[in-house]
């Protein structure tokens, strides 16, 4: 029943799209004022999608296995929380969630844009409806979440256990808010370009949407990363996996866009940058959807390898690309030359430098992610591009990037001079000395690490100084830049100071190094609702005599039968202790992996700081320098 309502709601929602388009075109041509009927229709469309989504949730909660999506991704013994989160833990449900956010955002956009002109609002709605129709048809035609199966199976196939996790339950909705927020930016930019409406006021109005998407995208990536850290059992937080990359690419584009919008709002410059970046942010989000959903790349997000779906998104994606190219080239008017030529030593120039660095990072990630596809098509060689590629291409450029990030905000608009800037040199010397002291005693590459740590410390101190000197003035920018320096520092120290012990142990055995003693004390068994757990008890003795007890688990899930390894992590302010165990086949041995990872908490915390900085900016009334 719920499935039936869900399905028909989808059809109604699609019909409303056509109705909205019809009235929008009429309104665009004839009336002077915005037709409020359209807002009601948009709300109605949102309502139907909500209804459809609720229908799917109810089918999941009731374990209605006559619904194919529920049958494929749920099981009656699953805890209620994961039955609900399972709704979007699969291809069909997650697309429905996309659609839900799409319709919600355009409705909110219409409510929040009352001060803008009628033509601009209507045109934005029209572009957004094109995207919405695309997703409706995609959903109904290739990925219907409400397919019936008959005879009705007694039991479902279950949700992949690694997806049964709280962080992953909220990761998709948050990430989608970011992705889909970029669709509103996309539509409104196209509308503004076609109407030649780009102005300082427009920048001020669209800035809010940029910040909203950016905050959610940042948090979404953070959640995914936290999940990977404790669930995948590698002890890392970023693997340069294609799936991570496709979320990083829109983030890079969006971050660049954010800086450009600020320039646009202040000086009506960089309009081409803004238009191109708005278009690329959304197309990169769509491209990401294509890459992971079509099965062209292999990953945990590949729900099914269905070329038909891939083809649909591909065609849809390129229609959007060509549409935006057309609008950009035929409607976009570049502003007069004057406002685009900046004095070399000014805030504008530093933002431009930031842009080019970001574009460089974006290209590296884009090439690394898509190159294997190109190579396979052209020469049928299979390669995979891994961390060494990204590290080599990105890390050297981080150094000037960090320096630019520290100095840029110190410059004034239009023209800056070097008066009262001597502290910049002083801080450089302090950072350099500090890094030398830290790195000298370690057995690692001295030069590279010193330069890296120096640049990160430099940004750290400069932004820290601003908290004391400027107080709440320019707080959001300072906070995000401070957060970024903290992030880079934490990642660097995490890399430098991590240690790892891998060994095979039987129950009762002890493994000894000069610093640690790992005692495998015993194992116990526990039965949970949907899995059996084997819990190992490990006693870890430090050289200073302190002991700690860690209890990693092996979980044997019943539906589907999959063994997962749950890490046990002891987190404190400075360091994470991370242990996993795995069965060695046909033996009494367990493979033990013990890792000491410093500053993990600080990595998460600094990303939170970064997004918090964005949040402050969102609620700020006045534009700050």
């Amino acid at each position, binding site marked *: 029943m719920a499935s039936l309502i869900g399905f028909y709601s989808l059809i109604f929602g699609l019909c409303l799209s056509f109705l909205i388009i019809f009235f929008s075109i009429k309104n665009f041509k004839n009336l002077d004022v915005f037709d409020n009927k359209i807002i009601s229709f948009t709300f109605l469309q949102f309502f139907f999608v909500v209804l459809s989504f609720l229908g799917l949730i109810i089918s999941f909660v009731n374990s209605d296995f006559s619904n194919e999506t529920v049958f494929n991704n749920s099981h009656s013994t699953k805890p209620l929380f994961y039955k609900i989160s399972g709704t979007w833990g699969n291809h069909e449900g997650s697309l429905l969630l996309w659609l839900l956010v799409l319709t919600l955002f355009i409705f909110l956009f219409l409510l929040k844009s009352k001060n803008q002109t009628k033509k601009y609002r209507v045109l934005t709605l029209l572009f957004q409806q094109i995207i919405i129709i695309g997703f409706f048809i995609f959903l109904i035609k290739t990925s219907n979440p409400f397919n019936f199966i008959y005879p009705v199976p007694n039991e479902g196939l279950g949700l992949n256990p690694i997806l049964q996790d709280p962080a992953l339950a909220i990761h998709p909705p948050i990430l989608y808010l970011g992705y889909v927020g970029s669709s509103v930016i996309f539509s409104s930019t196209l509308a503004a370009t076609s109407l030649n409406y780009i102005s300082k006021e427009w920048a001020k109005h669209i800035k809010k949407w940029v910040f909203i998407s950016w905050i959610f995208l940042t948090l979404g990536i953070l959640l995914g990363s936290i999940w990977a850290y404790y669930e995948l059992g590698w002890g890392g937080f970023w693997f340069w996996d294609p799936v991570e990359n496709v979320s990083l690419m829109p983030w890079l584009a969006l971050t660049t866009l954010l800086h450009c919008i600020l320039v646009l709002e202040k000086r009506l410059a960089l309009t081409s940058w803004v238009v191109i970046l708005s278009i690329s942010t959304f197309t990169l989000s769509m491209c990401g959807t*294509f890459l992971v959903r*079509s*099965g*062209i*790349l*292999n990953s945990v997000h590949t729900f099914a*390898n269905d*070329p038909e779906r*891939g*083809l649909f998104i*591909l065609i849809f994606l*390129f229609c959007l*690309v*060509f549409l935006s*190219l057309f609008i950009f*080239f035929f409607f976009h008017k570049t502003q007069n030359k004057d406002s685009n030529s900046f004095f070399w030593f000014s805030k504008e120039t530093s933002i431009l430098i930031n842009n080019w660095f970001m574009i460089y990072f974006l290209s590296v990630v884009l090439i690394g992610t898509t190159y294997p*596809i*190109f190579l*396979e*098509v*052209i020469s*049928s060689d*299979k*390669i995979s591009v891994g961390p060494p590629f990204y590290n080599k291409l990105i890390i050297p450029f981080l150094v000037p990037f960090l320096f630019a990030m520290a100095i840029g905000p110190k410059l004034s608009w239009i023209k800056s001079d070097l008066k009262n800037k001597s502290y910049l040199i002083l801080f450089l010397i302090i950072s350099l000395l500090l890094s030398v002291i830290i790195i000298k005693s370690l057995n690692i590459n001295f030069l590279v690490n010193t330069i890296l740590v120096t640049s990160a410390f430099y940004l750290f101190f400069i932004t820290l100084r601003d908290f004391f000197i400027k107080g709440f003035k320019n707080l959001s920018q300072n906070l995000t830049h401070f957060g970024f320096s903290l992030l880079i520092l934490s990642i660097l120290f995490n890399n430098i100071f991590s240690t790892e012990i*891998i*060994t*095979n142990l039987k129950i009762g055995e002890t493994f000894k190094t000069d610093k640690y003693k790992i005692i495998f004390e015993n194992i116990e068994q526990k039965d949970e609702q949907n899995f059996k757990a084997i819990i190992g008890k490990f006693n870890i003795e430090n050289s200073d005599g302190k002991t700690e007890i860690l209890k990693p688990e092996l979980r044997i899930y019943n539906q589907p039968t999959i063994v997962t390894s749950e890490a046990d992590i002891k987190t404190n302010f400075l360091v994470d202790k991370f242990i996993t165990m795995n069965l*060695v*086949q*046909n*033996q009494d*041995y367990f*493979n033990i992996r013990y890792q000491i990872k410093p500053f993990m908490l600080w990595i998460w915390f600094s990303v939170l700081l970064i997004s918090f900085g964005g949040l402050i900016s969102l609620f700020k009334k006045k534009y700050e320098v």
Partner: protein
Amino acid sequence: MKFKIYPALLTIFFIIIFFVFYKGLQNSNIYTPPADLKKNIPFFKAKVFLTNEKISSEQIFKGDKFYLMNIWASWCVPCRDEHPLLMILSTQKNIKIIGLNYKDNKEKAKIFLKELNNPYDKILFDENGTLAIEWGAYGVPESFLIHKNKIIKKIIGPLNEDLLLEIKKLAE
């Protein structure tokens, strides 16, 4: 209307990308390892571990001898466990052991062999792990018993005493 070069170039560029992605869709990306029992072994060319010269599969698996192809790496802990068994097996005259060194550091691999002795008749060097994919390997260690260019037994995970006996029996 004036012909605009940038839009035209960009359009062509995106059309090419479209076709590459379109072609990419047709290629399945899931490596379902095809090496089931009684299948022919894949034809390949590989680097020899010490000498770095190239050798083809035909030169390695000759005649009606039995071969045990063992995938190993110095970083792989279970490989260390099974190594003594391989040493025992290497004394058998009718079985030749071929090593496939998987995603390894050459120096560390040499130290590994120095420490635990070398049971291998030949060692192939699979630096980036592609050869193991062709063989349909799931991980390290893994062993394939080969007779007359056919895989007659596949062992996933480390060898143990029972499996060793079975291999000896099969090779009689």
